[in-house]
């Protein structure tokens, strides 16, 4: 089952499209990383997934075909918005009580325990907490709702490196123990490189790349060789990006993978996730975006893990 499935999803505000023609399928149980620069449309996509915004074009369903924003979706999806908005004048204990009242399912005692373990005073007003503490409170409340899908909008930006590690560890444990699926956006890809199962790359409101991380890494490689013959290869391979550095050229190509042929005088290397994302965000000369290349989409069927 796919926890998030969109087809040609788009959102327009006035004349400008914040997101256009976005088609993704995030399988259950995965950690999906949503990356892209500021203004790429990450928050727009997330807002539509949680039902805060209605799409202008295309469709989006969650948790195996449920309508976004429906009561089932609201029950089973916990959302942590950017900057972890909390009611500033309410104490942390009040926020927990509030969340308990607004949901059918909430493990208040576990949430209190976790916050106490983290050293966050329950009586303190939420507005007086540090940014990192606010993020922890928001995450605690989201997890205590026992969701099947956790959607986190740039949760790491307010956290110091130690807190980031803690945060991610908590998320990973929830995934392992409770089977929670996670969609997490960030523009710091290095953090997610090791843990992401599924990748969505947005740039300028467009979908640049989407698919399971393993498949994507297997499908791409970097060919390094003399600049002179680079032009010939661009036509021959499905080239994502060309980088010329003096006499040498690096081509990021998408083809059948490491078993593919390597032209004479060239070398092939596997590509790292960060390099892959950057390439799709900035195709450079000789390359084109995913949409124009008609890159095959991930199959929208049951994907077993």
């Amino acid at each position, binding site marked *: 089952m796919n926890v998030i499935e969109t087809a040609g999803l788009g959102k327009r505000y006035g004349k400008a499209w914040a997101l256009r023609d976005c088609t993704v399928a995030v399988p259950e149980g995965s950690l999906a990383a949503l990356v892209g620069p500021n203004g790429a449309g990450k928050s727009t996509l997330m*807002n539509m997934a*949680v*039902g*805060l*915004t*209605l799409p202008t074009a295309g469709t989006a369903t969650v948790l195996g075909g449920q309508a976004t*924003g429906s*009561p089932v979706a*609201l*029950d089973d*999806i*916990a*959302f942590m*918005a*950017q*900057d972890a*908005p*909390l*009611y*500033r*004048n*309410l104490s942390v204990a*009040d926020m927990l*009580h*509030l*969340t308990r*009242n*607004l*949901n*059918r*399912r909430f*493990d208040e005692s*576990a*949430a209190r325990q*976790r916050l106490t*373990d*983290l050293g966050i005073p329950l009586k303190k007003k939420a507005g007086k907490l540090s940014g990192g503490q606010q993020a922890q409170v*928001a995450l605690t409340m989201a*997890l*205590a*709702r*026992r969701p099947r899908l956790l959607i986190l909008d740039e949760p790491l930006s307010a956290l110091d490196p130690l807190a980031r*590690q*803690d945060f991610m*560890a*908590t998320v990973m*444990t*929830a995934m392992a*123990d*409770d089977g929670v699926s996670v969609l997490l956006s960030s523009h710091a890809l290095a953090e997610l490189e090791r843990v992401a199962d599924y990748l969505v790359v947005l740039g300028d409101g467009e979908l640049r790349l989407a698919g399971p991380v393993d498949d994507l890494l297997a499908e791409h490689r970097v060919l390094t060789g003399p600049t002179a013959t680079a032009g010939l290869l661009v036509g021959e391979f499905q080239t994502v990006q060309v980088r010329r550095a003096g006499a040498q050229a690096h081509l990021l190509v998408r083809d059948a993978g490491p078993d593919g042929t390597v032209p004479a005088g060239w070398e092939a290397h596997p590509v790292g996730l960060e390099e892959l994302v950057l390439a799709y965000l900035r195709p450079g000369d000789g390359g084109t975006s995913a949409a124009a290349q008609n890159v095959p989409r991930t199959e929208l069927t049951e994907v077993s893990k």
Partner: protein
Amino acid sequence: MSVLTLPAQPVRGAEPALRPVPWRRMIWVTWRQHRGMLIGVTAVLAAVSVFLLVMGLKAHHDYTSLLNCHPQDSAACAAIKRDFNNTDWPVSNTVAILIQLMPVLLGAFAGPAVLARELETGTFRYAWTQGIGRVRWTIAKLTMIGAALAILTGAVSQLYAWFFDPAREFEEMNVLAAGVFDTRGTDFAAWTLAAFAIGAFLGMLIRRIIPAMAATLGAYLGVQLLAWLVLREDYPVAIDTTNARLFSGPSTPSSPWILKTWTAGSTDWWRYIPVSRFWPMQFIESGWLLVLAIALGAATVWLVRHRAA
């Protein structure tokens, strides 16, 4: 470093089908979030009520001595009359002017705070992704706060009507006069409810608190002027007549209230409301104000549903 976790949850599928989040949960939510406003409003109204009670007792006492004074044109009675004019009347008049502002101020402080504040601070991204859903959340809040305001102001207006009666009779003001009519019966509560509905709607439309407050003041003024200058003439309790003798005597509080006069051909017409029709007129005005409040509430919920973010 230890990994901080939550205990693993029991196997899914063992849970019974969940009922929707009950409405009564919103009682605590609404109270906790709007505690400050509700307490503040209650405190102010309580202080006002104490003032009305104390000054009302004085006014009634003074007016009774005025009425009981005989003979009416003696110097002693004239002195009592002058005293009333210099002490009780100014107080009553000042309160009368200030209380006209109460519905719109309550509406401006309470209305935008419900929705515009969530939008302005971004907390709607939390509140509207919780299990209860944003439509039920909005309906519960608007209904509870609106009802509370209507009940409180309804009570205060009864006290105010009693407080103002001596001054009203002293100045021979008709209960149907603008400013008097809207502060008694069910009208005051209805105007407050309408003001709150205007505030909540404009708060959701404009999405920022202070501009919404200012817009509420303006919109309410528009509705009130519409009622005073246009609508009241056409309430179906008015009577059209050519009988001039009804209006020939001096104007007393129980005289018919003239809405307008016009001439058709060579006959003069008067449109008036007899004082006996006070309550039907109250119900008509409270009625359309209630309908307006509900319509604005529905429009607000529609905006929440379709234009959340």
